[in-house]
């Protein structure tokens, strides 16, 4: 109680807002970006466009939450794009080809995703394979499995409500998929801030050996983090399937890099131990707003690649520069 009121008074923010710490730079960047786009285009600043942006970041947003946990403990997960594709294909195969009800097909496909995370986690903790290599291998294996399910073909023919969940805006505002993303954001923030496990992640990222000596079950936590990251990648795959009304094994190529970029732009350090979900939410929004804004400005596709790369560099150097001071 005492500590809470002290930090609250000195910073003038709520405890939850405290998890935005370290993300002030990105937040300012986001606000500047929005201000610029509001002036530069007459289509950016509208409720409809903001709702579009929320639609557009659902997949990346959900995936980036899992990636944040992984990067917080000093790990990396390169397999999320492939895990996403595998989850989609398992879902499509169960629901469309075998006629299994969605209520069973969705948990089953997420179980497949969890299994991937479990294997990666065990490789990393039990067999001491570096996270980069373990998940690089899983990326390839999982992509291959996803392709094998239908021999590379897409699957269409989901029930109508599935696509509608990504299109109908309840109360004129929230699609089911956007609501799901917001729930994941809030749960992530609460877990990181208020649960023992959330704080343990920072300890492991800071120094795994010290964390172990302090009584934290580092092995179990690490495995669980990779499982959670994979399940969230699976959830984002289901969201993508709903958005496209189809699933294909070539989905999500390169998404792991987008997710890592969002986490890093949001101020989480790749070496682990600092950062958090709050920053990642900002990072995801920056990427979403930037892509949307560049399209609205009719910037040529080749130029867009240059701008997005430049923004990543800018965000990260600004952050390291600020820390050095």
């Amino acid at each position: 109680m005492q500590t809470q009121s002290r930090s609250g008074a000195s910073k003038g923010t709520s405890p939850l807002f405290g998890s935005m710490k370290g993300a002030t730079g990105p937040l300012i960047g986001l606000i500047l970006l929005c201000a610029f786009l509001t002036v530069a285009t007459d289509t950016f600043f509208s409720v409809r466009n903001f709702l579009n942006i929320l639609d557009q970041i659902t997949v990346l947003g959900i995936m980036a939450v899992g990636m944040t946990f992984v990067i917080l403990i000093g790990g990396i997960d390169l397999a999320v794009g492939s895990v996403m594709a595998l989850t989609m294909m398992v879902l499509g195969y169960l629901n469309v080809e075998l006629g299994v009800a969605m209520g069973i097909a969705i948990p089953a496909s997420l179980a497949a995703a969890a299994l991937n995370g479990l294997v990666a986690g065990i490789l990393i903790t039990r067999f001491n394979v570096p996270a980069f290599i373990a998940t690089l291998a899983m990326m390839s294996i999982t992509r291959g499995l996803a392709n094998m399910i239908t021999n590379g073909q897409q699957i269409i023919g989901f029930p109508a409500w599935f696509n509608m969940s990504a299109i109908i805006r309840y109360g004129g505002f929230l699609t089911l998929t956007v609501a799901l993303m917001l729930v994941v954001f809030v749960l992530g923030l609460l877990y990181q801030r208020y649960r023992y496990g959330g704080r343990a992640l920072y300890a492991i990222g800071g120094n795994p050996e010290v964390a172990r000596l302090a009584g934290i079950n580092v092995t179990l936590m690490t495995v669980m983090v990779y499982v959670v990251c994979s399940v969230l990648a699976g959830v984002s795959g289901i969201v993508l399937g709903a958005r496209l009304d189809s699933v294909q094994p070539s989905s999500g190529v390169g998404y792991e890099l987008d997710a890592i970029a969002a986490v890093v732009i949001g101020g989480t350090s790749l070496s682990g131990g600092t950062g958090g979900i709050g920053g990642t939410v900002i990072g995801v929004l920056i990427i979403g707003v930037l892509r949307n804004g560049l399209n609205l400005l009719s910037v040529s596709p080749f130029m867009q690649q240059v701008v997005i790369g430049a923004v990543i560099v800018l965000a990260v150097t600004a952050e390291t520069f600020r820390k050095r001071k």
Partner: protein
Amino acid sequence: MKLHKILMAATACAALLSPVGASAEGVKKIGLAVPNLQADFFNQIKLGVENYGKEKGIEVIVVDAKNDTATQVSQVQDLMTQGIDAFIYIPAGAAAAAVPTRLAREAGIPVINVDRFPEGEPGDTFIGGEGVNSSYQVCSEIIKRAGGAGKMVIIHGQKGTTPEIDRTEGCMKAIGENAGVELVDQQWTERWSADEGFAITQNMLTANPDITMIFGQADGIAMGAAKAVDVANLSDKVIIGGYDGDGSALEYLAKCEGPFVVTATQSTRRMGVLAVDSAIAVANGETVPEKQVSEAVLTTCDNAAEFVANHP
């Protein structure tokens, strides 16, 4: 329902219709969604749309999905936000997503599909190359030049896409007609690219050094295959065919040397022009044919030079 009627009417008066020269009234801004501008084929279509749009005083907004369906859906949402008057849609990936078409229908604007169209959700018209017959011609030419017999391989495009399926069908027909031709291997690329063509061909030549015929389903693949054949010192023994009529491939063919000797040149620029004209026609309430075919032209050393000077 209404769409169905329009399509029926469109087919009925297809013979009477000539969209060329329609007035641009009512269409000020066109959105063009392409799968991947790294591929020369799509780049040519884009140039066709852009140049012709400029002529007509139409603003063209191009978005590039980099082969990712989800990215494309987001980009199409953004196009709608910008208030485009017509939408030229080339679906990305094997799963031609129906969602962009639905978004455009919601906004009540014409949808013109080029090269591919989403299953179950076609646009107002489809402008496509004719893959089966042209690839039949390419493969027949390869077989003829190789003396009508020998070992052949096919390097496919991205598995499951419409062009990949059509080009396979056409080539298989040519192989079937020549009893002396033996299809010893087939491989699929992910991106129709030259580096994949190169690597796959090297492996194929290692497994079967006596291959004499290679069909690459895109010029990029064929160029890569030609490089691999050069490296293996087999340039005078192997005949390679490609497809698409990319700028760099046409220049290669015009030189009349090397193993890559035949391709089918698609009228990509013309497809772009046709798409803009169709968009204007639909916006003005005119009817357009359900399907407009733009034939590819068999291209060899003899006619490549003229296509280099002036891409169709």
